[in-house]
């Protein structure tokens, strides 16, 4: 989002979104969790979640907050703490919950494992899988941890120097000899 120069075309549900303003793209149903998380450090956990629902006009925001606190109980324990005081893993959970508060059709995740302990990373990816299965939210994940990403994804693209080197079903790519040797390291 906010790409200064771009060529080609970005379609969302068949509609061109290239060059549109970020808030408009959010209204069209895209939520983005940037690398480095994209929360509001000086706002409380609850306010972060409410801000996530900024584009919504329905009256179920409270229900959704309760729902994501159920999924991420630690956010409930820290509801009145400032987001900037949370640990890295907690901030990542908050960023995910914040993004889901807009009820997106498409969730973009940029390296959600960055800076997180392996155990926390696994936990968060499992939650992604659950949300995807329950809500049907499409997720586009950019991730260096290839084995983890491939174990949960349905479709995968392997990028090499900005070009798509390989693409296909995640299960097939995982078993591909070349991918295994180059990216999974065994």
């Amino acid at each position, binding site marked *: *989002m*906010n790409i200064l120069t771009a060529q080609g075309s970005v379609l969302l549900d068949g509609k061109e979104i290239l060059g549109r303003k*970020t*808030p408009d793209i*959010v*209204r069209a149903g895209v*939520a*983005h969790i*940037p690398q480095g998380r*994209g*929360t*509001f*450090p*000086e*706002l409380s956990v609850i*306010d972060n979640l*409410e*801000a*996530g*629902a*900024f*584009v919504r006009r329905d009256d179920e925001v409270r229900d959704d907050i309760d729902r994501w606190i159920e999924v991420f109980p630690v956010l409930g324990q820290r509801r009145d703490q400032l987001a*900037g005081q949370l640990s*890295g893993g907690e*901030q990542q959970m908050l960023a995910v919950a*914040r*993004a889901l508060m*807009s009820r997106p059709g498409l969730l973009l995740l940029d390296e959600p494992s960055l800076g997180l302990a392996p155990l926390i990373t696994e936990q968060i990816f499992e939650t992604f899988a659950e949300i995807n299965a329950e809500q049907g939210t499409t997720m586009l994940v950019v991730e260096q941890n290839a084995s983890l990403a491939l174990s949960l994804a349905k479709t995968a693209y392997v990028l090499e120097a900005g070009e798509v080197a390989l693409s296909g079903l995640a299960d097939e790519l995982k078993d591909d000899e070349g991918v295994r040797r180059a990216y999974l390291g065994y």
Partner: protein
Amino acid sequence: MDLFLARLFDGLGSGATYAALAMALVLIFKATTLINFAQGELALLGAYLVLVLGVEQGLPIVVAVFLAMVITAVFAAGLERVFIRPFDPSDHLPLVIVTLGLFLGINSVAGVIWGHGARDLPSMFPDGNLYSRGVANLSWVTVGNVATVLATAGALYLLLNKTKIGLAFRAVSSNLESSELVGINIGRTLQFGWALAAAVGTLGAALAILTLFLEPTVMLRVLIFAFAAAALGGLDSLGGAVVGGFVVGLVRSMGVGYLDFVPSELGVGAAVVVIIAVLLIRPTGLFGSEQVQRV
């Protein structure tokens, strides 16, 4: 004792006006970490509007003040759109120069339109004193000033913490990128901040003029104390601005009163002393949030 009370009341009364203008400064600083040097002149413009509406047009003074707040808010929103938004919000120096330019511009225009003579505004509070003891008079103006400032601070708190536009304002204050990612229109939210600050500043000027005369340089004297108050309170804390305003008001009245060697003309020095002391001892002020970045 009487003299102490007199200085106490004096400090509270003037402190309230510093607090009001400091809140206006803090609103802009919270949103953009920018010190708006034109804040005092926007308030000056508001005070002249009160003069036009309340004296020349003969509207009830409370109505005149309210209308002046609305008009300066709209005017400030326009200024933000034309002079502030075209600039990169993260590059402060050009913006500071722009606000200095606005300061000079508005000040000169006010001088051209309304002249440089001193004018008086009618009071929105009753004449006389609530309490008197010797030389100490707690006037209704002082009580009214303090009450108005506290009520304004309360109203701002509710607006920022209980409304959607308030949430957007706090979100933009916290993180621009995240704000865009949740669909907040940053430009319009900052514009709202400018409008709100101008309205609060106008109210502050209307209070300040009750004890000063209205002329084009009057806000300069208030603004320097408001800067001190905002710095003392922590620049990004509304409650801090109120406390800072009263502390600076008291430091000034007590300082000039008790330190015999300080001529009253140097009262403005109290503001400078407070600013320097804060910057040296506690740069984040009393209630300011420290700039912490987790990596």
